[in-house]
Structure formats: C-alpha cells, structure tokens
C-alpha cells in the first residue's frame, strides 16, 4: 500500500473523521466567540471547558455510530481526541504546559462523557431528542458566553513564628533569596515560585518587587506601612506568563503581624485575586492551592530568617 492509499484510508476512517471534525468545530466556535467578544480577552468561560468538550465527544459519537466500536475503543479514541485538542491549545492558543495540565482533567472527563452520551443518544435514533440536547448545549454556551463573568477571592494563611513582631517585620517588607527546596508539586514541575523580595525604601508608597524563580517580577506599591503590625501592597504590574496569560490577576497582598505577648508572633498572609477562568468551582481550587503554597513558601522563609 503506497502513501497515497494509506492517507486516503486514514482520512476516510470514521475514527479520524470524528476526531478531526470535533477539533475543527471546537476551534471554530472558540475563534468565533473570541472575535465576537473582544472586550473580555483572557476570560475563558465554563462553556469552553464543559460544553465544547462535551459537544466534541457527541460529534465523535455521531461519526462512530455505525461502526462496531467497543467502550474501550471509544475511551481510547476520546483520549486521542483530548490530546489533539490540548496540543492545539498549546500551539495555536499559546496556553502554557502547566495551564493545560490543570485544565486536562476537565477536558478528558467531558470529552469521554460526551462520547458515551452521544453513543446512547444515537443508539436511540430519536432525532428530535438528539437535536434538543445539542440545541440545549449550544443555548447554554451562547447564554454563558454573553453573561458577565467576575470572580474575586481572598486566600488567608497564618504561621506561628518564635520571634517578636519587630524581628519578623525586618523580613516582611523585603527578604533575602529563598534557597529552600520546592516542596509543592506544581513548583517542582516548573510553575514559578517566589524567590526574593526587594523594596526601594522602607516607607509608605515605596516600590516593592517580588521576584519569581524564572526571573518574573511582580511590581508592587506599598499602600499601608504600619511598622511591626501591618503591610499592604497593591500589585501594579505582573508578567504576561503563558501559564497565567491573564487567567488570574493578583490584586493585593497583606501581612499582618499579631503580637502574642510571649515573644512569638502570628504572621498572617492574605492575597486577593481575580479569576478569569470559569467554572470557578474547579479553577478556584487550583488558584487557592497555588496561592496558599506561595504564601507558605514566603512565610516559612520569613519564619526561618526571623528565628535565626
């Protein structure tokens, strides 16, 4: 069999047709949606992670409906479908590796679910029902795309430090580089972690810089400078990292030093962020976990420096 014949066979295979059509559909829909709604760049609504993958699964099921395909094969082909969609997001949408790793459980589960829902739908051969389901999904997609999306959250953590507030304060405003090993799995696989903080002056209005492991710098401005008690800084500029890409904006950070009256201090770290990826029930779990680990990496370092 020559190359031409092989290619012809591949293109005519229902498996390949289903996967290709599903991916073309997904990218067309996302492309149309982005061009119609340029006011919200970076915002990815829940439909893009839920409805589109499910429709992709249903599309493949339509192509596979007359083939004698087993459940395991449907799963395997759906996994390939997901991998292609994820790779295309990496190459064409510029999403980062970790970002795609985070989104992949949603994509895998909804594409597989869509393929099995599609199989059940097309077995019944009830065209009215099938059209109703697909129309409902598209309807939800349109309504969701046109709705306003805003989500802000605050994450708070605290740590006990065996040092007075005055000793802790010296390492809160700015601190020397962190040399401790990463122990959070996302940091270990390449997500940037905080490394050091510098400050232009120790006073209100001073510029603060938070430097991350890959060299990225968050520019901050001190908006509250209550010595030995409270430091608040607003993030005025943050890097356009492919892993973040405007999906999350860190707005503000705060350190509260509570004097326990026995030579120890409770250090509280607060961060506020806006999330631009939805559904929040999924992404907020990740955002909270990452923020919490950023907090603890910094706060454990402050503890180490203060207790020295």
């Amino acid at each position, binding site marked *: 069999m020559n190359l031409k014949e092989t290619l012809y066979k591949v293109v005519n295979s229902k498996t390949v047709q289903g996967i290709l059509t599903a991916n073309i559909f997904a990218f067309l829909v996302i492309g149309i949606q982005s061009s119609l709604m340029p006011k919200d760049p970076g915002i990815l609504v829940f439909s893009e992670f839920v409805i589109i993958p499910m429709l992709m699964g249903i599309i493949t099921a339509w192509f596979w409906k007359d083939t004698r395909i087993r459940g395991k094969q449907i799963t395997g082909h759906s996994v390939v479908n997901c991998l292609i969609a994820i790779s295309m997001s990496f190459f064409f949408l510029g999403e980062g590796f970790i970002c795609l790793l985070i989104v992949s459980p949603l994509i895998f589960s*909804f594409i597989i*679910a869509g393929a*099995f*829902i599609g199989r059940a739908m097309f077995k019944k051969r009830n065209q009215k029902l099938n059209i109703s389901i697909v129309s409902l999904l598209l309807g939800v997609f349109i309504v969701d795309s046109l709705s306003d999306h805003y989500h802000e959250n605050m994450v708070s953590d605290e740590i006990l430090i065996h040092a007075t507030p005055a000793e802790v304060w010296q390492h809160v405003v700015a601190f020397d580089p962190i040399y401790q090993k990463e122990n959070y799995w996302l940091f270990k696989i390449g997500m940037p972690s905080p490394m050091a903080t510098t400050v232009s002056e120790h006073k209100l209005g001073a510029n603060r810089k938070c430097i991350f492991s890959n060299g990225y710098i968050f520019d901050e401005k001190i908006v509250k400078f209550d010595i030995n008690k409270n430091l608040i800084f607003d993030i005025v500029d943050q890097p356009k990292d492919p892993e973040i890409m405007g999906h999350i904006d860190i707005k503000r950070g705060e350190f509260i030093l509570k004097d326990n009256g026995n030579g120890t201090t409770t250090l509280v770290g607060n961060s506020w962020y806006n999330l631009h990826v939805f559904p929040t029930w999924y992404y907020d779990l990740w955002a909270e976990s990452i923020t919490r680990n950023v907090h603890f990496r910094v706060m454990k370092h402050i503890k180490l420096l203060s207790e020295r």
Partner: protein
Amino acid sequence: MFSFVVKKAGFLKDIPLVAIIFDSLMRFWMFVTKPELLDWIDELEEDMAQMPETTIGIHKYGGTQFNYKGKEFAHVHSNGLLDILLNKELKQSLIFEGKIKDHHVFKNSGWISFQLHNKQDVGYGCYLLNKAYDRAKQQ
C-alpha cells in the same frame, strides 16, 4: 477511592451530569492504569446486548446501564463495580457463596454489588446479569 467519593460527595450525585463526569474521569483513569478492565466491561455489555429486549444506556449515576424493556436491572460503573437487582432470597444465597456484597449504597434492598477484579470474574458477572435478566423477564 470510589467508596470514599461516594461516601463524602455522594450528595452531589443528583446534580445533573456530576456522577457521569466522575465516572468518565474514572474510566479515563482505568484506561491508563488498568485497560483490561474496560475489556471486561465490554464483554459484559456484549453478552447482555444479545439478550432479547435488552437495551444498554448510560446510568444516571455514571456507568453503563442494562435495561429489560426499558427498565433497569443492572449497571456497571467504570471502575468495574457491577450493581445488579436481584430479589432478597437470591441475594442471601449468593452472599452465602461469598462472592458478592450488599449494594454499596442501598444495603437493605435486592441490589447487590460485585467487583470485577480479574478476567475470571467476567464469567461470574455474566452469570449474575443473566439471573437479574431472568428475574426482570419474569416480572
């Protein structure tokens, strides 16, 4: 893991699609870690598909559902947990054999659970499904 999720997050199962999505995630996990299990589930499905008046669909709490004349008599979750509707007498005698357990949620019912661990379990799974099919046919 499955029992932990059912116990701790079982209240979410009535939200449309949640259980189906969880089952799909479990199916993906099985595809990666124990792909032969999906073959065993397919074998059960193929065995049941041959029975007259049987249809196969999606179970509302995730998995593959087996119906006789549109009425459910069994379902299998994607981790290989086969739930079958028998009557209490038959259930007692099978439990005595030691291979099956009470249903993982509805303990005091005619439902039973049987976990597929290996290829040999497929035969027993088919045997149980046939019992449930016969029971459904008689009713």
